[in-house]
């Protein structure tokens, strides 16, 4: 892979941000946290929203609708890798709603974990959205991940994914106390001091690795001219243990089934090492 350059805290206003260069590819990711009301289908969970935008100077093809739909696809892939079933299906969320309702009111402070529910019993991977709950059914943190692709020199999905991981590590969420006053009304107190802020647990967040097929070979980290040669690509989300947490295919040609397995295996071999490297950099005292 090409060397990766990573910068943290590039946006002062954001709760967390990161800028990543890989080759000439340049991606900037900001994480914004807001107090919002939780989704009615998951009252004990925070919200998560991912958007990916392309700067029109990245490449002329991103002007107009193509950039929008392509951005949406990448955002969906990243969002699916961060948290199970936020976008996967409304039906799944709707069916899980009654089960979650039983757990409402169990957690009172921001740090209390939500009671386990059958559908999302402390998700085995991704972010634990239950920790983002402030007051069950009423308020919860909403996490907005906004990515901007400033320049496209290939491997955009991988770059956005790695930058998102770094930005999430950088994110500080203010501590919140919920107090109940004499009238029985809940009041939320926000402790704005930087020392009281807490960070997200990213240890189970997977990285998305794009494996492309060129001829009969699997290749990773293609530059823009190389990407033109690939007939199809598979974006695989892999966690630090090397387990597959999701995959989406793209490209205009089909892939043979055996090739598909070879592609996922390549991603599984690559991702844990990459994950450790990024984490080691992020936790190094020099930062």
């Amino acid at each position: 892979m090409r060397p990766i350059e990573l910068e943290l805290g590039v946006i002062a206003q954001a709760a967390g941000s990161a800028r990543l260069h890989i080759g000439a590819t340049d991606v900037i990711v900001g994480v914004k946290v807001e107090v919002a009301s939780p989704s009615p289908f998951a009252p004990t969970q925070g919200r998560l929203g991912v958007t990916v935008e392309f700067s029109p100077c990245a490449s002329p093809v991103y002007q107009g609708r193509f950039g929008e739909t392509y951005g949406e696809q990448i955002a969906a892939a990243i969002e699916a890798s961060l948290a199970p079933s936020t976008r996967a299906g409304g039906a799944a969320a709707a069916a899980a709603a009654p089960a979650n309702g039983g757990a409402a009111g169990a957690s009172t402070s921001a740090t209390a974990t939500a009671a386990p529910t059958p559908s999302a019993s402390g998700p085995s991977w991704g972010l634990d959205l239950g920790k983002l709950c402030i007051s069950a059914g009423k308020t919860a943190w909403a996490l907005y991940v906004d990515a901007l692709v400033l320049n496209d020199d290939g491997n955009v999905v991988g770059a956005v994914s790695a930058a998102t991981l770094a930005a999430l590590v950088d994110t500080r969420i203010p501590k919140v106390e919920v107090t109940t006053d004499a009238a029985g009304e809940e009041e939320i107190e926000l402790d704005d001091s930087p020392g009281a802020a807490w960070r997200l647990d990213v240890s189970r967040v997977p990285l998305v690795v794009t494996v492309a097929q060129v001829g009969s070979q699997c290749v990773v980290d293609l530059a823009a001219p190389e990407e033109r040669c690939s007939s199809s690509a598979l974006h695989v989300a892999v966690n630090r243990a090397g387990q597959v947490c999701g995959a989406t295919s793209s490209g205009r040609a089909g892939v043979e089934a055996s090739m598909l397995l070879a592609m996922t295996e390549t991603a599984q071999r690559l991702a844990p090492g990459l994950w450790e490297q990024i984490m080691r950099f992020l936790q190094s005292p020099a930062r």
Partner: protein
Amino acid sequence: MVGVFGPRQSEVKLGFTDTGRLNCEVRFTSFAAARLNKTELGALESSAAAALQQALEAAVQLDKFPKSVFDVSAVVLEGGGGDTGALVCGASLALADAGVEGLDLVPGCGVSKTAAGELLLDPSPEEAAAEEAGLVLAVMPQLNEVTLLSVRGRWADSELQAGLELALGGCGQLRASMRECLLAALAEPRMPA
């Protein structure tokens, strides 16, 4: 329900292309997907359309139709689980029925993995809601080429392989019945348009 229109001339603003384009559109009826608000429905529709386009593009010989566009419009009348697979099957049949030259029929189906590790082919909405992980696959069975794969949730290696094989088997069954259906449609006398 899927309709195919075209080929028609490509819009001038999109510029010249020597290959054709497939323009997919998916709509859900307001009663098809229960308890979704407008924006969620919009997101669902656009993701379904993207998946449909991805699945079909590889199968249609678009280089035979330069400068032209096919419009594939699909309406989901009732969402009862496995919507994406059904959409792909329907659209592929509609394209074949319209006489668009393709490489193969494209059946699509879903597999979901329960918490106990069981694999279920073509899950119902209840099964899909309780799933731990799932995948949707569209394939050209004659060429053994996968055109669409989308995987959710965490899979162990052997499980993913077993899931893929189950889905491939399901797609093989679907192709047989799709072929029968097309042949039956050809045998019937058509009303003049």
